[in-house]
């Protein structure tokens, strides 16, 4: 049975430190937009931490919700792409093939989570960030969409390593940059088709909810609702 990568994000554990956002940018060669472009809504961040307040002053509680691409099973972004740039790969991920993209931006509109990003200009990096580009991840040219890949490049490396050692992939062996960098361990990544994996166990908890479940996208990210 093929793998089906999924993630669980425990909202009780998220402290809103945004380490995941930074780690993601470093891992995935995400271009820096600069202050003025960011103010116009041109910044790219495959994962964001949504911050919201609850209650009236002084009884205010702040809430955090990290939102990457939800890697939907029934992803609205996929069927609308005229060139198959956004497609469903064999391991259930909503993949984006940059070279096929002609930039209709239809997928970005279709995504209810606003989880897709467009390259408004040729990518550039604030110095010295251009010195730490990741050779495993391609750079996206102006005019194409990009999005969270669950750091698929890491999964590919781990899979070939396991194959070379003639052993199955262990649970927890693969983790995207955001999961790896989360200091409070709020994010868990793994194979949803493996009932014994940590991510499958956690996703089955009663606290597990999907984001915008009513839209019917069947995301592969499960949020564990806050109890505290």
């Amino acid at each position, binding site marked *: 049975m093929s793998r089906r990568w999924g993630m669980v994000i425990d909202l009780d554990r998220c402290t809103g430190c945004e380490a995941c956002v930074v780690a993601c940018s470093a891992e995935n060669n995400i271009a820096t937009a600069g202050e003025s472009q960011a103010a*116009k809504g041109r910044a790219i961040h495959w994962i964001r931490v949504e911050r919201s307040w609850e209650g009236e002053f002084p009884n205010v509680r702040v809430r955090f919700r990290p939102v990457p691409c939800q890697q939907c099973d029934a992803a609205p972004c996929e069927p609308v792409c005229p060139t198959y740039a956004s497609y469903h790969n064999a391991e259930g991920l909503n993949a984006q093939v940059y070279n096929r993209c002609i930039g209709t*931006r239809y997928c970005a509109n279709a995504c209810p989570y606003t989880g897709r990003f467009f390259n408004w200009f040729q990518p550039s990096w604030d110095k010295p960030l251009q010195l730490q580009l990741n050779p495993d991840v391609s750079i996206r040219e102006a005019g194409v969409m990009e999005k969270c890949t669950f750091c698929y490049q890491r999964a590919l490396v781990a899979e070939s390593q396991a194959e070379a050692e003639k052993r199955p992939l262990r649970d927890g062996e693969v983790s995207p940059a955001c999961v790896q960098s989360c200091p409070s361990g709020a994010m868990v990544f793994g194979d949803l088709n493996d009932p014994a994996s940590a991510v499958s166990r956690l996703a089955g908890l009663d606290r597990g909810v999907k984001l915008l479940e009513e839209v019917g996208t069947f995301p592969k990210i499960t949020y564990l609702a806050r109890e505290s």
Partner: protein
Amino acid sequence: MTTRERQRLEAAPQDRDRLTRDLLRPVLHTSPRIYLTMMALGAFVLAGLVAFVYQAYWGMGVSGLNRPVFWGFYITNFVFWIGISHAGTLISAILRLANARWRRPVTRCAEAITVFALVIGASFPIIHLGRPWLFFWLIPYPSERGIWPNFRSPLLWDFCAITTYLTGSLAFLLLPIIPDWATLRDRAIGWRKKLYRVLALGWRGTPREWHRLEMAMRIMAVVIIPVAVSVHTIVSWDFAMVPVPMWHSTVFGPYFVAGAIFSGIAALIIAMALLRKILHLEEYLKPIHFDHLGKLLLVMSLLWVYFIVAERLTVWYGNATPEVAVLLATQRGKFLPLFWTMVCCNFLIPFPILAIKRLRTITGTVIASSTIVVGMWLERFLIVVPSLEFKYLPFSWGNYRPSWVEITITLATFAAMPLLYLLFVKFVPIISMWELKGGEHPEPAAAAELAPGHEASDPWEGTLPSAGS
């Protein structure tokens, strides 16, 4: 064109055909003012081209688009122009099938609008692409990349529908021009004679040719109506097929089609009024034509109100959180001024003008049509943008303000339309000469099928200028 040529054409002794002479005058005579107008319009179009090249070179970032508003002016213009294109073919096909005799001077004006508006409209999806030089990846052809386009995507449906519609409306426009080109072939001299000789395809006007032409037009009229309806339905499905609040609506298909016909008739009235003035066709485009198109416009205005109420009231009662956010933003929030301007332009102003017979004059219908064109553009804008600004998760709500690039390109297309139209008028008689002449006599086939005495009570009697008067 030389003076000598013009004199020969206009004062030919054997030319006892005033109608032909009147209708050919705009083709064969061009005043300096028209050249100046063309140059001014051409300058705007050039500015638009420069803006497009600038955008293609630097990236879409030079537009005002952003995340989450990935579609803005360009898609608004796309929907608007495709809507305008429904003027023509749909109206003239319906009137042709209904055998409405007053259609004769109107049809070609309308069909030309269709073709040009379609060309302009269809260019917008390309203008708006992130990598416009790769637009041909939308075309299904066996490519070296070994991949076909995705026929599940409404954009591919758009591609198929617009291709079909453009082919159909081009044929619908060009087939009945052939006999008129044959007339021009006989009268023009110099390079024009050579040009029209080729364009006329060797048309003579034998009973066989006439019969096949009329049959072809009848088939085209039957085919083009469902195509036109499907085109704007599919344009609406670009929106309705994705789960975006206020886009994902079952009413969008008919709502868009009604809006398209609405704006199309308005554009037709404006074009006719301009042609009448500029080309001195007062005797052919008469107040009665504006009166009747005005009545159609009135019906469409009411239909538009019906649809917008049907759309918005159900959303309001449904009270789904994401949809209500968009609804209130349009009706009470930041889009309030635009929304109510739209309602004024599309209903509150044109309704009394078109409903009161005394006001339904040429001036009246042109005023109503002008507000409607503005209102329908706003309608398309208010469909595209607010839903994206207020899409689901409030954390990602955004703001859209068009940049100079988008505004320039938009203005350029509004200049391209009259420019293309003027060029067209200089190569083709804008009023179908042979159809107008056919209208001088009662149609024998139709007369035979109708009860005797019908001819006398025909309300259209005398609406056409008679030759030799």
